[in-house]
């Protein structure tokens, strides 16, 4: 006979299931009610960290994540268009030497003092490609790192290198003492000087940091930071709207209008550093003809693309680079949209009945690339071209068979983290740097090389502007636009918008 007081198996299962469900869902509802709590900020980000090795990547957003814990000597300030010191106080460029004076009184999270030995140690780790670093090429022309005293570091380069600061940007410093003690396990517990201490890393890309109360730059406002990697746009958006996340990046532009109406969420947007353009390959006809290149420039209406495809959330380029790039010149003007002029130029160039071209792109790589290329094709048809659109897999498009092997005649591409016009000019238009355009012009090469040797930034900018003018006059490519970086932020969270895709929790505050 069954005892009436005994718990039946079915009852037991039912109740334990309820308990388990409660335990699993409870924290979720709690977080929901308490978005952007005073002590903690949860950031859902499309790229957090692919591995715990802090040098095993070269990606701007990931630099920002690691910068919570480990810090660079210097950092590029997009707003000021100049470098500012972080762990370095001052620097000097003399011949083939770059000398840095380090900040005094900076302590690592393990209590050790930051000195030039830590810099030498970290650079050595960054150059260790076998050890997993992807940042070694930045130091390929550095022949020696000297440490004459505790607070001086001298980089000796094979040739004078005026753009060395750009290579040193985002190179973060680890503790030598921790390295000596931990040996191979150094990268399991990252010790740096940053405003936050490392707590944990989960495979798949979640990072947890806790505040460093003894930070040399002053204590951060928020105690705990959680970076969670969520690659799907819709999932990040849903998390923000439900209060699971306090901050997300890469809000799709067509969701902006809807998100702006949300009661607890704000949209922050600013001009990004990825510039989109259409590149010609000079090894292919008809792009060796200046008149045809100019015709192509007249036939593409970048403003209409931004207005219609990106809902106006974008910034058409008015010259060879965006306005936020070092070397931009307000005097540069893009070729106005004028399909009639394009047809005239084509006729002059010997194509009175139009000209057949192929436009390559890699669908899905960049926001709305399919739509953009279809619009470009339709616009160019009005300008007298006959356009065939060809989409390729990214690997095929980008590798030796494609762009980097100089095999594609005309393609749609974006160049990310573009803060300095030198990067673009060197990569696309200087003889022999890459095969992307197969362009060669001794005069332009001279300008590019000259500015790379010029220590005075003002003079450098002038030379870059001169190079930019010749690039526009020769119509070496079709500059299109920069898109916006769009962030979704809980309304009670304040932060400083940055154009370099870094999200810094120590610049964040929670409003009461």
């Amino acid at each position, binding site marked *: 006979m069954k005892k009436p007081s005994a718990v039946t198996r079915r009852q037991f299962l039912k109740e334990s299931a309820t308990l388990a469900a409660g335990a699993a869902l409870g924290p979720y509802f709690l977080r929901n009610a308490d978005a952007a709590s005073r002590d903690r900020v949860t950031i859902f980000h499309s790229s957090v960290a692919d591995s715990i090795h802090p040098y095993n990547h070269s990606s701007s957003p990931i630099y920002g994540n690691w910068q919570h814990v480990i810090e660079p000597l210097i950092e590029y300030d997009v707003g000021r268009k100049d470098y500012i010191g972080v762990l370095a106080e001052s620097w000097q460029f003399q011949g083939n030497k770059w000398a840095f004076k380090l900040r005094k009184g900076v302590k690592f999270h393990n209590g050790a003092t930051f000195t030039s030995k830590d810099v030498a140690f970290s650079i050595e780790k960054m150059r260790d490609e076998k050890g997993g670093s992807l940042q070694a090429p930045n130091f390929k022309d550095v022949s020696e790192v000297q440490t004459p005293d505790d607070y001086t570091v001298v980089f000796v380069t094979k040739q004078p290198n005026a753009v060395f600061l750009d290579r040193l940007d985002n190179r973060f410093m680890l503790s030598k003492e921790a390295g000596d003690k931990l040996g191979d396990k150094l990268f399991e517990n990252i010790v740096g000087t940053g405003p936050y201490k490392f707590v944990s890393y989960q495979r798949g890309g979640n990072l947890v940091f806790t505040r460093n109360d003894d930070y040399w730059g002053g204590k951060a406002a928020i105690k705990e930071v959680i970076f969670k990697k969520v690659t799907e746009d819709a999932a990040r958006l849903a998390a923000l709207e439900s209060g699971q996340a306090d901050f997300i990046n890469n809000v*799709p532009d*067509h*969701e902006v209008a*809807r998100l702006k109406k949300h009661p607890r969420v704000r949209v922050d947007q600013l001009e990004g550093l990825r510039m989109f353009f259409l590149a010609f390959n000079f090894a292919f006809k008809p792009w060796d003809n200046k008149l045809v290149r100019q015709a192509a420039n007249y036939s593409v209406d970048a403003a*209409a693309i931004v*207005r*219609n*495809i990106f809902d106006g959330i974008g910034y058409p380029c008015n010259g060879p680079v965006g306005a936020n790039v070092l070397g931009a010149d307000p005097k540069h003007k893009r070729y106005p949209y004028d399909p009639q002029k394009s047809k005239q130029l084509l006729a002059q160039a010997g194509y009175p009945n139009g000209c057949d071209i192929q436009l390559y792109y890699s*669908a*899905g790589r960049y926001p709305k690339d*399919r*739509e953009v*290329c*279809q*619009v470009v*094709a*339709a616009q160019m048809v009005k300008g007298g071209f006959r356009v065939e*659109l*060809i*989409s390729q*897999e990214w690997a095929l498009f980008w590798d030796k068979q494609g762009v980097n092997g100089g095999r594609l005649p005309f393609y749609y591409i974006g160049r990310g983290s573009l803060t300095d016009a030198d990067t673009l000019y060197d990569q696309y238009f200087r003889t022999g740097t890459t095969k992307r355009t197969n362009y060669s012009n001794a005069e332009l090469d001279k300008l590019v090389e000259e500015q790379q040797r010029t220590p005075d930034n003002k003079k450098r900018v002038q030379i870059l502007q001169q190079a930019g003018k010749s690039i526009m006059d020769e119509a070496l490519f079709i500059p299109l636009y920069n898109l916006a970086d769009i962030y979704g932020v809980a309304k009670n969270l304040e932060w400083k918008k940055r154009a370099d895709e870094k999200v810094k929790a120590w610049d964040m505050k929670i409003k009461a």
Partner: protein
Amino acid sequence: MLSIRYLKLWVGGAILALLVVCGVAAPLIAPRDPQAQTLEDRLRPPRWTDNGMQAYFLGTDNLGRDMLSRIVYGSRISLMVGAATVIFAGIVGCTLGAIAGYFGSTADEIVSKISEIFLAFPFLLIAIAIMAFLGQGVGNLIMALMLSRWVQYCRVVRGEVLSLKERDFITAAKALGAKDAYVIFRHVIPNTVASVTVIATFGMAIVIITEASLSFLGLGVPVHIPTWGSMLAEGRSYINRAPWLTIFPGLAIFITVFGINLLGDGLRDIFDPKLRRQR
């Protein structure tokens, strides 16, 4: 012939006939050029809604192209790919199946092993792999779908032939001195037509859906040719803001597949000897 028994056949046939007319006479039916972009009029809702424009009956897409015209032109690709695949796959599959079933032994071994290899992979996966290898294009698409569909016909025909070849009329034909090829094409294959027709109609529905899936994945036809699958793919990111971009191509696929399935069902009812006896 108009009895309720044939309702499925008539409705299915009517839908398919309508689509064929639509595809063949697309330039006459479509109000606009399916490629013409009017960026200022992008994302207009259908005519009968508040913001609809007189000019665009089903609204416009993300590049300001007329949805109705694109759907009408899209039927061409769906039907052409569907029909061509079914015909080619049918020819290849039936021939190989008949050879395997009729001759048995080594021929059967070889054909069966090859078809088993094809059957081991999911159908869509084979199609994706072949498309990735061949590249975009209508011809390549038909080729990829055919290579992944012929097995169905082969298996069914082989089974049928195995039982047919033991039948008295085949023995009689052979006894009269008929050559193998004559027996296969004159006596064996005509007797498998009923089942092949049924598989072919259902197969066409599957092929149309696969074409849409491949186009959705960006592996179908080149971007400038409108297809229902690529329309769905492009409309997907606008589903909150402009649901008509996905609803109408989705409906078109649904109605087509529904019609073809009805037709297949109706045909099966006619060919099925058990159902025929009940008449």
